[in-house]
């Protein structure tokens, strides 16, 4: 994440280099040697890290763009406007990593276009694939002015921007609808695993739970990214916007926790809450990281108003969110699968490399496009001093 703090110091560059090299080998292993050599996936565990982390977490953590866009354009929260473009970019890059990850995940990735022409409307995955396809296009369009305004031909630029202004509200509405649909449908993927998914995670309301949890997680990612921009990219934004965004997170997390507990109790899963099993531990880890700790921390003004504590609290939210998605997709299915799945290192490497590439793309976009307002240029040594002081 902080690969960009000091351009001159090579440590981060070395780390990025190592990640990319490992990712390159993982890519070779996946496409030249196959699943058996690059993953620990088996028939009882057909979906592993690439789905659990790459797709479920990737899409969920990219929910910030639609939430902020809807807040600004549809609900009139003008205060968030300065961070709007950045959050749309984060989402767009997030979805790009999901699609890139799909190329590893699918057994026959060159057929990724099949759902466009081969329809099965009763498949949740079909709906997800269409929503992701359409929403990624919406995000690209929403973000496009940042690139178009760099075009030197005034007339072409103005023509495009005027057209874009016309369709913008429509885009935001479409984006909100598509996001709401596929964020929930990702949970809906697991509705069909009744009898296989552990009772602490199976629920007829998985769709609602996935939707409710994606919004605070996406906002937390937005806060993290913006904080890092302020720290390391000489960006000038009012950090009080971040603490204001975080005010929305705690109630949403509390709502999710409440919904989840009521759901478990009404579905007679109460005994599972305190069984001496690995699943119970994973469940409480998820609840602790995603609900209890952040809600307690974010209810304190001291935490919300201090960018650094806010940053770490948001990191907790993201970790808790990942715990939830990995629990649904991996932990919760272990017992019925009867196998113990630990991802192979190449699975981590591929995911990490794709995410690193997205972080680098974000960095260069912030540096070279007008994503966020910047401080007047300073000498390089001054920037590094300021960063060191912060």
């Amino acid at each position, binding site marked *: 994440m902080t690969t960009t703090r000091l351009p001159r110091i090579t440590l981060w560059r070395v780390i990025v280099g190592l990640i990319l090299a490992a990712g390159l080998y993982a890519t070779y292993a996946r*496409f*030249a*040697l*196959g*699943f*058996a050599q690059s*993953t620990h*996936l*088996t*028939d*009882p565990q*057909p*979906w592993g890290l690439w789905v659990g982390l790459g797709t479920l977490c990737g899409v969920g953590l990219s929910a910030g763009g639609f939430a902020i866009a*809807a807040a600004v*354009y*549809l*609900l*009139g929260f003008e205060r968030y406007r300065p961070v709007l473009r950045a959050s749309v970019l984060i989402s767009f890059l997030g979805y790009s990593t999901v699609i890139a990850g799909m190329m590893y*995940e*699918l*057994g*026959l*990735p060159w*057929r*990724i276009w*099949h*759902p466009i022409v*081969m*329809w*099965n*409307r*009763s*498949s*949740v*995955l*079909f*709906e997800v*694939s269409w929503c992701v396809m359409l929403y990624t296009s919406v995000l690209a369009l929403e973000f496009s002015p940042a690139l178009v305004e760099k075009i030197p031909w005034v007339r072409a630029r103005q023509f495009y921007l005027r057209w874009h202004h016309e369709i913008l*509200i429509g885009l935001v*509405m479409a984006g*909100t*609808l598509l996001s*709401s*649909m596929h964020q*929930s*449908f990702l949970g*809906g*993927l697991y*509705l*069909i*695993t*009744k*009898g*296989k998914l552990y009772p602490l995670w199976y629920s*007829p309301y*998985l*769709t609602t739970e996935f939707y409710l949890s994606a919004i605070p997680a996406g906002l937390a990612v937005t806060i993290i990214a913006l904080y890092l921009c302020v720290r390391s990219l000489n960006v000038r934004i009012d950090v009080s916007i971040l603490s204001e965004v975080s005010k929305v997170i705690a109630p949403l997390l509390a709502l999710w926790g409440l919904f989840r507990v009521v759901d478990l109790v009404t579905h007679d899963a109460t005994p599972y809450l305190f069984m001496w099993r690995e699943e119970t531990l994973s469940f409480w880890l998820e609840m602790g990281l995603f609900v209890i700790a952040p809600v307690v921390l974010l209810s304190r003004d001291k935490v919300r108003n201090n960018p650094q504590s806010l940053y770490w609290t948001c990191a907790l939210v993201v970790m808790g969110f990942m715990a939830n998605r990995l629990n649904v997709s991996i932990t919760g*299915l272990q017992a*019925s*699968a009867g196998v113990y799945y630990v991802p192979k290192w190449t699975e981590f490497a591929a995911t990490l490399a794709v995410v690193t590439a997205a972080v680098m793309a974000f960095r260069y976009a912030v540096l070279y496009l007008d994503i966020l307002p910047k401080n007047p240029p300073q000498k390089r040594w001054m920037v590094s001093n300021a960063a060191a002081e912060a």
Partner: protein
Amino acid sequence: METTKAILVDITKCIGCRSCEQACKELHGFPMETEAKLSVTALTVIEERGDKFVRRMCMHCQDPACASACLVGALKKTAAGPVTYDASKCIGCRYCLVACPFSVPRYEWSKLVPYVKKCDMCAERQAKGQQPACVEACPTGASIVGNREEILEEAERRILNDSKYVKHIYGSEEAGGTSVFFISDVPFEKLGFVAAPRQPLPTLTANALGDTPTVILMGGALLSGLYWITQRRAEVAMAEAQEHSAAAPVRPIDKERS
């Protein structure tokens, strides 16, 4: 649907000779070694449970979870009974493996162009009026094939007329009903049969998916309403500010309106 075929496996009659396994492997050109579990080269296997022999294969559900899960419709329930797989559509997402309540489909993990493998009840042979290879090879009549209604009646007749049988036909209710049935003299859970949900699994997702056009219409209306309110509030605020400034003794400079 009276021509829908089904298979009945009577576990009390199976002697574990593995003729079904061999016939299946021979038909598909798989290596002939015996395998302990279903695999990409063993679409049916005999599992030994105590002194019982339990045949495993695709259950060919009436309303299959795999077919509803498959986003490109590669898996289909045919009117004749078998659930078939069209490899030319498959994109390799493996959602069918996740969705199957009986954990039947297998994936070619070690191939570079991997496909899903599962029993198709010899759909091609059946279309030509032949029996599935496994059933044809069974020397004791432990596996029989026939029209689904008749096969179910036969299974009922056997378990009602003979007290040794467990009074349940596995597959009659599991996953909303299948086209492969098992009857046994040992409780099914002791033979490794899963307690699959009783309703057809696709109904679980159908409710959640709902009617997409309705969702889009309702959601669109809701969002448009919110947008209208937001716009309206902004306009009102603007008008009020102007009224204020008009009433004020010193008018602030308003470049656009002056």
